[in-house]
């Protein structure tokens, strides 16, 4: 098993005719993902790599029975694209777009409150269940079907971790990049709850970074309710306060969001924290052998 996406997932790519959208559609198809439709308003008369393009998400749902969207729409239009997918009733919306205004995400979060759609991202690499399907931009070949779940606020850092997990032979059940923005659709806790119920997932690697309090909240949840081993890594121990470290969400401000506070909270919840990224794979192996 895996969570949220598997072989039965039928993807619609929003922004499929753009440079990024077209490139990653091809990559997803090569990985074996069922990309059943694309959407670009005004271009609903063509195909991209054999995938039919529609003008609206609603049309894509009606014609192709898609249930998951992957968004490559430019930032000014991305909030509209997310709400479009949610209104069309999709199960899962993966928003890759980086640079969406915060107040647009405030609107999106408000709209999603009573909807069934789960949003991953924005500003994220997406989600992959290795060997089954990938919805996003991560390099497929570094993954290997296995038992470790990965939840991360970062992109390339996740690839680094996944690569180490593949090296150890443990592999991955499902990997999710939840995104580097201040407001994101789903959190560490949302996905931990799903991994708790997934029999194939034996442990979770949680990759956080400076900014906000998501890691502290996850630590509380894990201590109270989570019953599988968790290994964590926090990026940004050397980051100075007040500077935005690339990701809009990665900033230490008002005394909040420091790496040391997050590490302290995780350790206090009994979570193993790898301080050095180079040691993460070995640390995971050690913890999983003991359990």
């Amino acid at each position, binding site marked *: 098993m895996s969570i949220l996406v598997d072989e039965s997932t039928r993807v619609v790519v929003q922004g499929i005719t753009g440079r*990024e959208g077209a*490139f990653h559609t091809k990559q997803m198809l090569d990985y074996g993902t069922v990309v059943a439709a694309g959407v670009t308003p005004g271009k609903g008369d063509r195909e991209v790599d054999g995938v039919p393009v529609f003008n609206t998400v609603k049309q894509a749902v009606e014609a192709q029975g898609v249930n998951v969207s992957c968004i490559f729409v430019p*930032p*000014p239009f991305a909030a509209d694209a997310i709400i479009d997918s949610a209104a069309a009733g999709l199960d899962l919306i993966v928003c890759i777009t980086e*640079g*969406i*205004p*915060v*107040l*647009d*995400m*405030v*609107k999106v*979060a*408000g709209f999603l409150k009573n909807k069934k759609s789960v949003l991953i991202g924005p500003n994220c*690499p997406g989600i992959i269940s290795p060997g089954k399907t990938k919805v996003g*931009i*991560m*390099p497929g070949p*570094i993954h290997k079907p296995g038992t470790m779940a990965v939840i*991360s*606020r*970062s*992109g*390339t*850092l*996740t*690839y*680094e971790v996944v*690569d180490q997990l593949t090296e150890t032979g443990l592999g991955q059940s499902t990997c999710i990049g939840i995104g*580097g923005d*201040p*407001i994101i659709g789903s959190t560490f806790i949302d996905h931990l709850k799903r991994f708790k119920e997934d029999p194939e997932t034996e442990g979770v690697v949680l990759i956080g*970074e*400076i900014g*906000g*309090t*998501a890691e502290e*909240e996850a630590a509380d949840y894990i201590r109270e309710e989570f019953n599988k081993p968790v290994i964590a*890594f926090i*990026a*940004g*121990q*050397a*980051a*100075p306060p*007040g*500077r935005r*470290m*690339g*990701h*809009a*969400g*990665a900033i230490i401000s*008002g*005394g909040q969001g420091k790496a040391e506070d997050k590490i302290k909270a995780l350790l206090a919840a009994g979570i193993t924290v790898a*301080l*050095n*990224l*180079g040691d993460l794979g070995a640390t995971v192996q050690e913890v999983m052998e003991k359990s």
Partner: protein
Amino acid sequence: MKLHEYQAKDIFGKSGIPIPNGQVVTAVDQVNRATQIISGPPWVVKAQVHAGGRGKGGGVKVVHYPYEVVTATESLLGKHLVTPQTGPEGVIVNQVLIEEGVEISHEYYLSMVVDRTTACPTMIFSQAGGMEIEEVAASSSELILKEHIDPAVGWMMHNARNLLYSQVPPPPFGALRALMSVMANVYKIFMTLDCTLLEINPLVLTKDLKVFALDAKVTIDDNALFRQKELLLLDDPREKDPLELMAEKYHLNYIRLDGNIGAMVNGAGLAMATMDVIKMAGAEPANFLDVGGGASEDMITKGVEIILKDRRVKAILINIFGGILRCDILAKGVVAAAKKNRIRVPLIVRLEGTNVKEGREILKNSELEFLVAKDLGEAASLVSKQVSS
């Protein structure tokens, strides 16, 4: 993007938030005219820099004679101002705001941010405003009140009542209307100008129950600047590091730090983690540099050049996990940079991911001297060798 105090106050004034009368001067010979227009004594002379903590750093002076306005301005303009937030070298003061003094009977703190957990615009209000607000927040957080605003409904009068009547004791009855009006305007400005932070500290009450915003701190969401074009005119590039400005031009995410190991990485998270690895190896990173997911050969070349321009750099670590950015593109960019510039420091390269073989080939066949690290652990030990040697 940060606004200067005088720019933010200009917006406040036009939006109905009361501010003291003031004039910005950029040269000392403008001071006498300003002093004639602005009523006083006393006058307040304030350095206009983006960094916070100006009061503690001597950037705000209260004076009582016109000649003192001149000397206070002289002591700030063109000088380096060091505050708790600037670092030891400080920042240059290019502009000074001269304001009428206001008789303060109480200092409040008022700000607005977007709360990450609830995804709501959130107003923060406290009776304990002034320079010590951060200490208050740390030691007596019950004095800091928060009100989440439902974005679907917008600002409601009860939001203001919740904040004002929860204070013990509540502000004087005669001041409530003025405070409520400031709060409503803060929300309006925050939402229309795509702010990520709007802070008034202190928001003061005078003896005759008038309310004034004595300071103003506004940060605009960089991601929303495409629809806030008129605010772009308020950008002050002099406040930025020259290397950071150069990086911005080439769409590179570069932040200058205090160490001596230059780093070039793809992806913000991996870049932060690489900085951490450098630090743990016993060295200090000279910069954060994320070349991004889809960097071109030219961007890589520019990235290397920017790192080399920093004379403190003693070694460079390139850590790339190729995803969308292919390792061969990276290698070509590095080789091109080496052709144009003499690379005067040891270069440590760690490549992994898409087209890694091609990338390693290109580097090997170039005349470039470099050390190869097969993984992060090895990269770290190579870095520490460079520092200790």
